[in-house]
């Protein structure tokens, strides 16, 4: 079993991220590897007070940490190992590309598509305009798949 097969899941506020996360966990449980969670925080808006902008940045980071550690506990329960936790600040598409370029451990990017109204902005950008810039395969999981269906395909 290759030790460094890492599934990267982008944790955003969409409902379908849970499907992507579950898919990644099931793959890891059944055929080995690790899960990595990436949360991208919004950079603070321009503020007339520097102290408030700094506070804003700090609170968003703390929020991201709390979210990731809650999800990490779920991942550990399913796969038996704690996931890698990454927090970046900036534009989601740019940061995903940058993480993939910088972190050689990541082997597959797992994205779930939205069930209605297009596949979601991140999926659209990464499979369309930026598809050539990726340096690892993408797995697209349909956001409407149920737990039983996910279980069957993994």
């Amino acid at each position, binding site marked *: 079993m290759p030790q460094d097969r890492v599934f990267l899941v982008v944790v955003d506020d969409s409902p379908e991220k849970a499907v992507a996360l579950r898919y990644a966990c099931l793959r890891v449980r059944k055929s080995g590897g690790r899960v990595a969670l990436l949360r991208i925080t919004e950079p603070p808006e321009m503020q007339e007070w520097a102290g408030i902008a*700094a506070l804003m940045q700090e609170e968003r980071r703390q929020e991201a940490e709390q979210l990731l550690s809650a999800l990490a506990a779920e991942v550990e329960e399913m796969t038996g190992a704690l996931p890698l936790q990454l927090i970046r600040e900036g534009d989601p598409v740019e940061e995903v590309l940058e993480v993939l370029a910088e972190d050689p451990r990541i082997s597959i990017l797992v994205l779930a598509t939205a069930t209605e109204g297009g596949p979601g902005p991140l999926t659209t950008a990464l499979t369309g305009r930026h598809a050539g810039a990726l340096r690892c395969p993408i797995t697209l999981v349909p956001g409407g798949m149920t737990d039983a269906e996910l279980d069957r395909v993994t």
Partner: protein
Amino acid sequence: MSVYLPIAEMSVDALLLLGIGLGVGWLSGLFGVGGGFLLTPLLILIGIPAPVAVASGANQTLGASVSGLIAQWRRGNVDPRMGVVLLVAGLAGSFAGTQLFVLLRRLGQVDLAVSLFYVVVLGTVGALMVRESLRAILRRRRLAPARTHQHSWLHGLPFKMRFRRSRLYISVIPPALVGFGIGILSAVMGVGGGFMLVPAMIYVLGMPTTTTIGTSLFQVTFVSANVTLLQALQTGSVDIVLTLLLLAGGVAGAQFGAAMGTRLRGEETRALLGLLVLSVALRLLWDLLETPGSLYFLGTAT
């Protein structure tokens, strides 16, 4: 290209007004601020009477805040309950402020009072802004985000209320006082007051930063709408030609500013804003202290 302003009762160069609108709109887009605190003193400096300048400033702030409020509301960043408490107090404050304005007008001291308010408030705010950014520039030190979560006397007050979106359980008295104070400033100075409301909400009320911006915009939007209306009804000082010219420039400028704001960040821009605020305050102070060119003039007493 001169135009005659019917309410201000004077002729001004239309291009100058468009330029002021453009500049203030640009800054408000860049910093996400209402811009009233720059617009009103600039209008006073070019000779527009203070009541008209104040009413126009409030109107400009309204225009700048609405679009921001809609964006924040969609993202769920407005705490409606806190917003309503601040708003009710703010409306009361702006009502009191307009009464004060009417009283000052009767005494004939309105120009002096508005200028004094501006010198004190802008002077303080500008000095704090410059100090904050100079410190950051000189030391390149990350500003330690300080937030006091100690239980102060503020937590002992009665009439506690739960603000779920902001995860707070505090007395309604501090937010009501903050809202009332900003309401008065809004009516007397023609500002939205966001630049003072936001720090007060964070450091005094202890609100999380996620809900602060949206909730302050909620208060600012409705209070400045109320101020514009009250000024129009009670002092009859909203000049439609002036506000239209300013808004035309302001809308265009805000687009430029918002586009630049996403690329431009950092202490240098903030220091410039601080210096600008401070120099406006100093200029107003100079105008108050300088010996007038003609010491008396003959005319009918108003």
